[in-house]
């Protein structure tokens, strides 16, 4: 187990003026499962590769267990990494793939066999040890990649989108196994993904990145409920939060032609009104407004309804129960749960605290 500290960590690639990673500050505790989440190109993988020692660090400090490791080569950082492509050595058997890292560390052959067999047993790979990677399914390869990390018993596990190449059903299964693995080993894990479901379900905390910068760090539900800016509000959640232009008009907040009973506190006149699809009730008995139903998407457990509100150009998405009866073309009454809504500053895109 180990702590990992990123203090003003930056990366600038040679020949580029832009910072791929822009002074990232992040403290990861002993045994924590930290997820780095963001769209592609946001610098999350580069950050992970700097922690791994695969990328040089342009600025700031990286500490593992309070020791500065900026210039310590990857092999001496006592970390293991699972790659998106699995990166199994194609010319070696599963056994040799698992044993490769131990052989370098001059572990005795007997001890290597014991540890490899033990890890293979827990991952259900015992029958596959003599096979080569090309004779394995995607899920099995994934397990070998995981085993290669576990067998080394490292201080820190790094994952670079490890589930992206699996099909949907396997992904859900592996997600559960990774969570169990984390509980069993209790080691520090840093997990990079662009999949918000993985981030929400697996992380003790999520670090959301955009444009090389950290946007928000927090427990999954905190980040989900209290996004610091419009980027987080629209990036987390599927479908994302509705971001609607609004302005204060007397004692009410006008969202299009809809007047909402929101008192203006420290907010500017023009704001962005943000509300998640599940915080809008459709077919409500005491509606704030009526919306024209554009489309109804029944998902089985729930129904996504796309509405148009008078005076608003963008559509409003509502997550309703499966029982709703509205059809495309209907006018449906809707009510906003204002306690869950937020206001954002349209200029800075930051959330305006205590504004509702």
């Amino acid at each position, binding site marked *: 187990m180990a702590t990992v500290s990123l203090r003003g960590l930056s990366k600038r690639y040679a020949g580029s003026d832009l910072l791929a990673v822009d002074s990232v500050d992040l403290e990861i505790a002993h045994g924590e499962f930290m997820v780095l989440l963001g769209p592609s190109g946001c610098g999350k993988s580069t950050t992970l590769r700097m922690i*791994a020692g*695969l990328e040089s660090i342009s600025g700031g400090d990286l500490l593992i267990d309070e020791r500065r490791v900026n210039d310590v080569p990857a092999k001496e950082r006592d970390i293991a990494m699972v790659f998106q492509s*699995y*990166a199994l050595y194609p*010319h070696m058997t599963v056994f040799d793939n698992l044993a490769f890292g131990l052989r*370098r560390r001059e572990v005795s052959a007997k001890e290597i066999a014991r540890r490899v067999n033990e890890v293979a047993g827990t991952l259900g790979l015992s029958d596959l040890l003599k096979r080569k990677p090309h004779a394995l399914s995607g899920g099995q390869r994934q397990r070998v990649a995981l085993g290669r990390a576990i067998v080394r018993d490292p201080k820190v596990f790094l994952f670079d989108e490890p589930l992206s190449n699996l099909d949907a059903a396997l992904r859900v299964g592996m997600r559960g196994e990774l969570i169990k693995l984390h509980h069993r080993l209790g080691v520090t894990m840093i997990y990079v993904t662009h999949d918000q479901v993985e981030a929400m379900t697996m992380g003790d905390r999520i670090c959301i990145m955009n444009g090389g910068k950290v946007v928000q760090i927090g427990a999954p539900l905190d980040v989900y409920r209290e996004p610091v800016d419009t980027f987080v509000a629209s990036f987390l959640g599927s479908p994302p939060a509705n971001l609607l232009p609004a302005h204060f008009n007397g004692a009410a907040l006008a969202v299009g032609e809809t007047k909402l009973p929101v008192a203006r506190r420290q907010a500017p006149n023009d704001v962005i009104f943000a509300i998640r699809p599940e915080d809008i009730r459709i077919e409500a008995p005491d509606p704030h407004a009526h919306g024209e139903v554009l489309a109804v998407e029944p998902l089985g457990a729930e129904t996504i309804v796309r509405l148009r509100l008078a005076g608003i150009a963008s559509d409003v998405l509502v997550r309703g129960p499966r029982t709703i009866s509205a059809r495309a073309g209907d006018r449906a009454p809707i009510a906003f749960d204002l306690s869950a809504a937020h206001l954002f500053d349209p200029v800075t895109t930051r959330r305006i605290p205590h504004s509702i």
Partner: protein
Amino acid sequence: MISKGVLFVVVVLYTAFAAGPFLWVATMALRTTSEITLDHYAWPTTLHWEKFPQAWFNSNYHVYFENSVLVVVAAVAVLTVVGAMAAHCFARYRFRINRLLYFVIFSAIIFPPQITIIALFQTLVQYGLYNSLIGLTLVYIAVQLPLTVYVLESFFARIPADLFDAARIDGYPEWQIFWKVSLPIALPAIATTVILNTILLWNEFLYAVVLITDEAKRTLPLGIQRFMGDQLEDVGMIATGLIIAIIPVVLIYAFFSEKLIQGMTAGAVK
């Protein structure tokens, strides 16, 4: 069905085209020159197997053969190791003049040997390497290195970078990553260059004829040329010599051919 039939006919025709001359030389290897002069295409009536020991011992073929083996084995060994290392670096490491260097090495391919041979001759004379097997070996290495690097680089470049990263995290230094990861994975491509270089250098004539004059230092192609006089060609002995010369190439090919096919079709079938 029709396409299979057509394919069969094409294969038969191609085999006849490729193997016909070979068989013809093989039959001539067992006939004497006077028999051949009487009828060029006749089957051997008496099999003159004694021509092989004759060529080997009396006509100095054992010396030529030994010289060829020495030069080709040394050149191919160095080519393979140095070529693979260079290719690994070009494919793997980002450094400032990577592409420039690669271009300079590769551009050497475009010059036909006739252009450089006089300068090469003078250089070797100056360094005291003229008329020596070491000199010839060095020239062979220099001549074949660009193509070797080119073939291997394109293969090495297709090895996913994640594998190297994984090996680095597994604790291996760059040097060992080359030996334990790059090289074994690139084996099909390496087999391809081994065969290519062996065949090319085994048959190489131009550099050898310019750079070697000593009877005792001749390679096989030069040895065979010795039987082509101004007045008389010992066709029978030439054929015997050719067959002796071909045997190692066939063996090498048989040994590496499976890898060669893998190398040529790599990436074609996922």
